[in-house]
């Protein structure tokens, strides 16, 4: 009969392509059972949105089946998203494992569309996802996700509204459409605090935060309150947008918030008549920025009527039309982001949080 050690040794040959370590030393292999010629175990990945989940399962099955004396292999795929914690291992917002702001320098580059579709795509992989619309000046998440319900009071705070499997809270829920927010800094900070601590988020793997444009009070407060897992920067490809996006990058770096990646929106246009690709806002901008900022390019979103219609219609494209090219783009970005978050945690484990005792 095959031994546990033999099975583990066989599995050690399988690398996680993002984390660059083998799946045994990463601690992914759990609940190993051997009964005569049948082997069963679970692979507990760091995210349900793992881009190579199916491939890894196949490799694991094949590796164990190659062992002499094994006729049957059962692999159960599970996931457990790692959390940002303080030095004492405490979660900073109870239940919330990762807080990921989505920012840009300029307005109008599609931050909210990216945030909403990213949140929905992550939730579609099975992750528990929240979306905080902190763009107090122009909250557009309720429109993009077609939310007409309003949040209800819960036992301890406000209950977020569920939309397409995502728990949503938006400044738009509390401001009438005919009102404008004309607030000074302390009011903005207070709203961010309430959204973080007085919303009943429950258990979340990822809390995506849709930021207002720029580098102001909302961004600063968010970076001060909790150690963020890292930020996503959205930009269009042209220089004028990237130059301003760089200011957001510099802000996050000054505040020691890692940059998890860049999303290029309105990347190109494919003519619906002739199929020709047109680079309306230039091309290659995000690649150059990614190199300059030393951050990965998570994906490129085309300028597509389908995405615009979905956003205005309040039905995310990944939900409405899951087989479409637009849906595939968001799904790829979500998986790449989840992988970057897992990589980030591996780095954090290597350099533990500062201990403060005074």
């Amino acid at each position: 009969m095959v031994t546990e050690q033999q099975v583990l040794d066989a599995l050690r040959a399988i690398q996680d392509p993002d984390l660059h370590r083998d799946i045994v030393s990463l601690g992914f292999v759990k609940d190993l059972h051997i009964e005569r010629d049948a082997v069963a175990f679970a692979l507990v990945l760091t995210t349900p949105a793992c881009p190579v989940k199916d491939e890894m399962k196949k490799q694991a099955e094949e590796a164990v089946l190659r062992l002499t004396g094994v006729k049957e292999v059962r692999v159960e795929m599970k996931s457990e998203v790692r959390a940002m914690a303080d030095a004492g291992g405490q979660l900073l917002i109870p239940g919330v494992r990762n807080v990921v702001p989505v920012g840009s320098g300029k307005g109008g580059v599609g931050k909210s569309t990216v945030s909403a579709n990213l949140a929905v795509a992550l939730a579609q992989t099975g992750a528990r996802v929240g979306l905080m619309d902190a763009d107090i000046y122009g909250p557009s998440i309720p429109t993009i996700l077609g939310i007409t319900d309003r949040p209800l009071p819960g036992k301890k705070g406000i209950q977020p509204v569920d939309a397409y499997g995502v728990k949503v809270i938006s400044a738009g829920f509390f401001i009438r459409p005919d009102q404008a927010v004309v607030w000074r800094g302390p009011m903005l900070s207070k709203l961010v605090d309430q959204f973080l601590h007085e919303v009943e988020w429950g258990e979340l793997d990822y809390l995506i935060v849709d930021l207002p444009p720029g580098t102001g009070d909302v961004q600063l407060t968010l970076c001060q309150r909790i150690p963020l897992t890292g930020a996503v920067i959205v930009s269009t490809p042209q220089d004028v947008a990237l130059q301003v996006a760089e200011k957001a990058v510099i802000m996050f770096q000054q505040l020691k918030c890692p940059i998890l990646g860049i999303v290029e929106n309105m990347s190109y246009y494919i003519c619906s008549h002739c199929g020709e690709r047109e680079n309306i806002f230039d091309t290659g901008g995000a690649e150059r920025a990614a190199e300059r900022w030393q951050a990965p390019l998570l994906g490129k979103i085309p300028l597509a009527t389908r995405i615009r219609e979905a956003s205005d219609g309040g039905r995310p494209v990944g939900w409405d039309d899951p087989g479409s090219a637009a849906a595939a783009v968001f799904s790829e970005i979500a998986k790449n982001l989840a992988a970057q978050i897992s990589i980030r945690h591996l780095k954090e484990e290597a350099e533990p949080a500062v201990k403060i005792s005074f």
Partner: protein
Amino acid sequence: MAVNASSQPSPLEVGRANQHDVRIRWSDGSEKIYPARSLRLKCPCAMCVDENTGLRILKEPGIPLDVHPVKIEPVGRYAIVIHWSDGHNTGIYTWENLYELGQKLA
């Protein structure tokens, strides 16, 4: 260019050097002592330093000789806030500034 992540050492531990003074251990192996009153006088907040000119508004004679931190808390990933025995608590000391200050105060 500021876009590259700084290679400055990161803090490992903030604790007491003695009853009043602060000690910070850094990832480059160094350990710096921050005498309490010197640190209070270096408070970077807008009430202690003019935001536009960078000139110090804080007057040294007004600060008690035995001023000391009562509590130190983290601020996100990039700084700490010190609650002082004289009631002052608006100064955000970034790790970057603290490392540089450590070279000067030592």
